[in-house]
């Protein structure tokens, strides 16, 4: 009987030891969504893009002021439609030992430009006419038309020439020259990378549920988590002494989009009424993190093309009501709007509050939430009246053409609201062709002022970023667009 007892104890011990593993050497980073593709030619979601920044290198990057800067290549403009890129010393090595060279660059971008490959990034670089290899370090880009923002489009991760030529897929087996080696991706929940400089392993652990993520952090099963937690859980984590919290103001822009071609929402007064009916400060105060800032334009004020001192739409329910009445809506004939969201619980929460706020000025809102695929499809096809989303990681003002130009209605671009304004078109085009930065930024500012007046979008806020880490992690710095580049410097101390 004694032996049975010991066996029992061992069994229980084994059972319980399946739990946490605090002694693990790798830095474990919890993710709220699993990366979809580690192939930079195809990845569009934020998580995949952020991880690809660690695995791959790119020609151009953006600095803190959102100005283009060389990443792995320096460029100079030979003429308005001819740019020469020369690879610099920071170019890295692929896993097979070969160093990043110009042929890899040419192969990557040619692959994306080829419509047969159906890369979602093709649209952003389709002004490239041809790519010419000069030597092993130099490559020339010829454009179809001049665009001073051009180098800023070349931010896509570079894949080895062999891969591009042989049309291999890198979705699950990335091959990059970036600061991190790909080690393993056995299942959706675990992705392992290794930092080249010191062989520090980083493990991306996919934990869908926010509560579980927070608990795992508290128990030491993961070391870091970034964003994607309800504010209440963030406070809760902050109160734990083994966890440190850092917040940073972000530049991811959250907005409400209108379908301007809708017969009801075609009326700018109605859109203004909705804007005045939303109590943004209350939403920010109670639902969002401390460093969230109210937004009045797509680009943050500190952007070189950003709008400073814009005139905001204050929370003014009285004004909203009178505007509605001026358009013939009252208690007997209320305005009815349909608000679509994805199934993300946080978005639904925000939408429910907005529904209530609009209700208070007499607008009846029908809230419909859908799974992402259906939601996104509806948005692109114009089957909506209003919706809410965010633009993540916007650096280049080419976003304005993509979103607001009359020729950018999906599938050409992302002008989902079918907004058509010739003045805005003109400002976009003038900005694209102007030679100097000063006049360019002035055009963009005027543009944003006009957009604020017309309200195809109601700007809501710039979300903050936060990172919660265990106390033995140091050196992880947040980035304003929420990327994971902080992992280049993060260090894990052991007891």
């Amino acid at each position, binding site marked *: 009987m004694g032996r049975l007892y010991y066996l029992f104890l061992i069994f229980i011990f084994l059972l319980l030891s399946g739990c946490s593993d605090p002694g693990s050497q790798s830095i474990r980073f919890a993710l709220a969504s699993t990366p979809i593709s580690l192939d930079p030619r195809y990845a569009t979601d934020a998580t995949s893009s952020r991880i690809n920044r660690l695995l791959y290198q790119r020609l151009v990057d953006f600095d803190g002021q959102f100005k283009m800067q060389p990443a792995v290549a320096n460029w100079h403009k030979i003429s308005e439609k001819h740019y020469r890129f020369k690879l610099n010393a920071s170019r890295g090595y692929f896993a097979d030992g070969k160093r990043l060279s110009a042929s890899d660059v040419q192969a990557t971008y040619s692959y994306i430009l080829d419509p047969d490959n159906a890369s979602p990034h093709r649209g952003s670089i389709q002004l490239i006419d041809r790519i010419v290899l000069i030597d092993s370090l130099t490559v020339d880009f010829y454009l179809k038309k001049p665009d001073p923002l051009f180098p800023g489009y070349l931010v896509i991760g570079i894949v080895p020439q062999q891969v591009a030529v042989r049309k291999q897929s890198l979705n699950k087996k990335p091959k990059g020259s970036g600061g991190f080696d790909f080690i393993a991706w056995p299942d959706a929940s675990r992705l392992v990378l290794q930092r080249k400089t010191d062989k520090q392993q980083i493990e991306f652990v996919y934990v869908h549920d926010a*509560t579980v993520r927070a608990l795992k952090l508290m128990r030491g099963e993961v070391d870091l988590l970034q964003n994607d937690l309800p504010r209440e*859980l963030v406070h809760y984590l902050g109160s734990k002494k083994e966890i440190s919290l850092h917040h940073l103001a972000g530049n991811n822009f959250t907005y409400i989009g209108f379908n301007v071609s809708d017969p009801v929402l075609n009326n700018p007064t109605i859109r203004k009424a909705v804007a005045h009916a939303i109590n943004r400060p209350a939403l920010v105060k109670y639902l969002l993190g401390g460093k969230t800032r109210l937004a009045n334009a797509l680009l943050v004020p500190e952007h070189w093309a950003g709008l400073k001192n814009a005139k905001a739409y204050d929370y003014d329910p009285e004004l909203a009501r009178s505007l509605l009445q001026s358009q013939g809506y009252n208690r007997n004939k209320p305005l009815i709007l349909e608000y679509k969201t994805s199934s993300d619980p946080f978005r639904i929460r925000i939408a429910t*509050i907005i*529904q209530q706020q609009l209700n208070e000025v007499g607008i009846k809102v029908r809230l419909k939430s859908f799974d992402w695929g259906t939601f996104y499809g509806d948005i692109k096809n114009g089957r909506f009246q209003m919706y809410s989303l965010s633009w993540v990681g916007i650096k280049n003002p080419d976003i304005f053409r993509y979103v607001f130009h009359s020729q950018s209605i999906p599938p050409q671009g992302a002008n989902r609201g079918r907004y058509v304004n010739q003045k805005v078109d003109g400002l976009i085009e003038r900005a694209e062709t102007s030679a100097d930065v000063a006049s360019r930024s002035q055009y963009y500012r005027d543009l944003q002022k006009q957009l604020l007046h017309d309200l195809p979008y109601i700007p809501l806020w710039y979300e903050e970023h936060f990172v919660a880490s265990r106390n033995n992690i140091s050196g992880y710095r947040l980035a304003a667009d929420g990327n994971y580049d902080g992992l280049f410097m993060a260090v894990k101390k052991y007891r």
Partner: protein
Amino acid sequence: MRQYGLAVWIIIVWVTISILGPFLATESHTIQLQVILNGPDMHNWFGYDDLGRSVFHRLLAGSLTSCIVAFTVIAISVTFGTILGTISAYLGGVVDLIVVRLIDIFLAFPGILLAIALAGILGPGIDNVVIALSVVGWVGFARLARAQTLSLKHREHVVAARALGTRKRIIILRHLIPLISAPLLIEATFGIAAVIIAEAGLSFLGLGVQAPDASWGSMIRDGARYMLVAPHLVIIPGAALMIVVLSVNLLGDRLRDRLDVKTDNMEQD
């Protein structure tokens, strides 16, 4: 009444507040941002949810949802199932064969799997929940009605009626159905409990009521997201659900004991 005790009182309370619900639960959609996730205290016994809405009011609103769905689904299922089952058993032959196969096919889907799939495919919303649960619910009653009718078919009063040339419809309505009403009533009672749970389950999965309407199931699901900081959001609707379902099941148990139904001859459920 006395022997049923507490269970019946709870059910009466439940049905009453469900009927009165729309008049009492006036604030089930009222958002008060400043009291988000506040727990129960002296003034508000049930606290507030993640949007600052009163849990008490939402509980009442959810009560109405479960009540309506339960009674509607059971009414449909009992009616349809009984008619089909009795007719099938009485007529026999090919009709019976087909119906039995049909019942078997529906019974091949365990639990509420078919209801989940149907609700998922038809789309969210309470009406689709009622449809999905009714499609799944009639089967149990049909089987019971059929089994009961089969055993009653050869009773003397039925044989006599047939000898007298009474029309089939009259035989079924007047001579068969009243006799099988007892086991059907018991099955219906347990059925109500099952539907309450099923509706809550579908809402928990996101297939039932949509935001911002309340259902105990969706309250539990939304509450589970904040379990770390506001456990009352799960415990309170959960307790309500458990108490009501327990009472209905108790009532069913007592009814079964009292009506002394012999189900030995029939297959166990």
